[in-house]
């Protein structure tokens, strides 16, 4: 069943958050929630139970990996697949991210026209859900 999915976008940068939201909504046809910090993300994930979380790595306070750890520790959010979104992609970082158990890493800058397809492929969703314009 091709359905609209609910995705939580977590990024401290206003511009990136807006662009990612716009891309997932307008191109992917998904419902998008946003959070501008890790603490907010943990709360919103528990409340809204999104189908996936796009998580920035470099954030003040709780950074991406720390936020992921909290999400995993919470029985309400531990099953939600998490994809890291990062501008920091040295080989050492890739190895570190692979270790902590996120589903995938998407590099910034990303292409807003293919972002939702990329997410769909990673999570095994059908591309372009029915609600796509």
């Amino acid at each position, binding site marked *: 069943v091709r359905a609209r999915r609910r995705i939580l976008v977590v990024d*401290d*940068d*206003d*511009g*990136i958050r*807006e*662009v*990612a939201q*716009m*891309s997932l909504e*307008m*191109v992917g046809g998904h419902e998008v929630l946003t959070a501008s*910090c890790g603490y907010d993300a943990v709360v919103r994930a528990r409340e809204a139970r999104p189908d996936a979380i796009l998580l920035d790595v*470099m*954030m*003040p*306070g709780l950074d991406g990996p720390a936020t992921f750890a909290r999400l995993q520790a919470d029985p309400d959010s531990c099953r939600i697949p998490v994809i890291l979104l990062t*501008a*920091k992609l*040295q080989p050492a970082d890739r190895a570190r991210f692979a270790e902590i158990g996120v589903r995938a890493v998407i590099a*910034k*800058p*990303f*292409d*807003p*026209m293919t972002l939702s397809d990329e997410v769909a492929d990673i999570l095994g969703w059908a591309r372009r859900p029915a609600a796509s*314009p």
Partner: protein
Amino acid sequence: VRALIALGFALAIAALVRAPGHWGGHAVDRVFAQAVYDAAAGIGAVLCLWRASAVDKGRAAWSLIALAFVLELAGSTVYAVLYGASGGPVPSVADAFWVAFYVPMAAALVLRVRAAGGVPRAVILDVMIAAATLGSISAAFAADVVTDTDGGSLAHRLTALAYPVGDLVLVLLVLQLAAANAWRLGRAATLVAGCFLLWAVTDTVHAAQTAHGTYVAGGVLDLGWIFPFVLLGAAAWLVPDPPTPFRRTAGGRALVVPVGFAIVAVVMVLYSGLVDANLVAVALAATALACLVARFALIFRRHLALVARTGPVLDVVHDAFMSFDERGLVTDWNSAAEATFGWSREEVLGRDFVATFLPEDRREAQRRHMSHFLATGEDDVLDRRLERTVLHRDGRTIPIELMISSQETDDGYTFNAFLRDITARREVETAKDEFVAIVSHELRTPLTSIRGSLGLLASGVLDSEPAKAERMLEVALENTDRLVRLVNDMLDIERIESGTVHLARQACDAGQLVHDAADAMRTAAMLAGVTLDVPGGHGALWADPDRVLQTLTNLISNAIKFSPEGATVWLGVDARGDEIVFAVRDEGRGIPPDKLELIFERFQQVDSSDAREKGGTGLGLAICRSIVEQHGGRIWAESVGDGSTFQFTLPAAPAIQSPRTAALAGAVGDGSGADRAR
């Protein structure tokens, strides 16, 4: 040729297997012995000529040996023709040929010694020790010839003595040859050496027997002349040993030969001195012992000279220096090494460097490498710049750069290593890598927004949503501005720090600059609802006014950004001695103590979100610091309770300046109250 050799051997063996009882006295024995002797010498000469024609190197030497054989043969023939089987007088014409034999033979050996690369002084001493000892033995047997006047005429005795002396010279030369080859003789050279030794013994016994009148031609002793020819022939026949590709000094083993001979010399001194009362033998043996003393003195002096030459130099160089021997034991250690590794020289000398300095997992490989090198000379480490991790005395590992060279000494190999602790360099490299990572992150972040918003706009998905399209355009624009600021700031800081920016220093009024900066920031302050409190102070400053203004506006801008609405930002300027102190104080959230220094580093905001949230680049304070430091001033932050104060110093204008500066200097302290802006 092989047939001739076989014949020679057959004859020699035939001579040897004759029952011993048949030897001596009979004319037939004498003739038979003569025939075997001539045959052996002839075959030897032919073999040596054959070898001379077959080899590239050593042709002259083998030819000379052949010539020596021919002379020997000639002497024998002359003797037989002139005196027949009855025996001739001593000395005879034949003796001239036989003594002449030694000349080409010695020349051949000298050629071989030269070809082996000459002989160092230490080796000459070794040979002298051996020679004097052998001479002593010889004298113990044959000295009667000289001392006993009943032994015949002087000519007779001198002739008899000429042979053992000549043999001794040859033995000496062979020993030199052996020494020059690090006491490793090939099979051919060993046979030649054996040949001369046998001759030396035979001639010594012959001289003694002649002196006592007991020598009988055709006796067993004659075998001592015949058999060496067989040995020489075999030496010529043998395929030469392949040249040893790797030549190494035998280390401590080099001393085995001289010390061995010296022990014999001691025995000779005791025997000849106490039992035999043979002064010549004692003197020769004593000479051998004196040479041994000289030999050790040479080693010791060389060692002292090395220490004297290198010690002081090694202690003033900044690199650590360490030497170790073939066994891996540390033999030298300078003061820089003490500082690097924490071991004092006294403690470390004689320690196994592998176990002391290498991490556990590298030890086995290092030991294998070392033995492989000593066995084969193959190596891929020496004389190269290497980077390794080694152990400090306290157990921590330190990265080092090193270069090892090897040196051949009398005691085998010595390995010398210069090492440098590269911890600091590694840290710089790490910091550089981190900086590049941060910069790439800082550049990627605005680029992500620009790329994303423009991508959405270009695709047309927002065509039906003008409000959203407009918002995306704004995002692109804001982030483009941010990117421009970031690039500008990065270039700015780079230029200031590298000194490519020329500071247009001039006398200027500090108070005026503070006013100008406040004016520039007034709009921003107004928008943020922040009051700027500007003092009326003055101070004659020696600086680049544009850069001072840049620093001030940067600090004021930061203060406004972090001030809550309704707060005040205070500016201050004060002349203290030959410095002018500027201050910018806010009522913001303050700075944690551990960040007070760090915030002046690039991209080191108190909170990494600050830059983006407040529209900064994360480089503002780093630029301020660069500017201030280029002027020779200092910048620092203080934070007590609410709010923080940023202060920096710049040099005051010197007292005697242009008239304009003097006028400015006169105005210092002439305050006119606060100037408020809202």
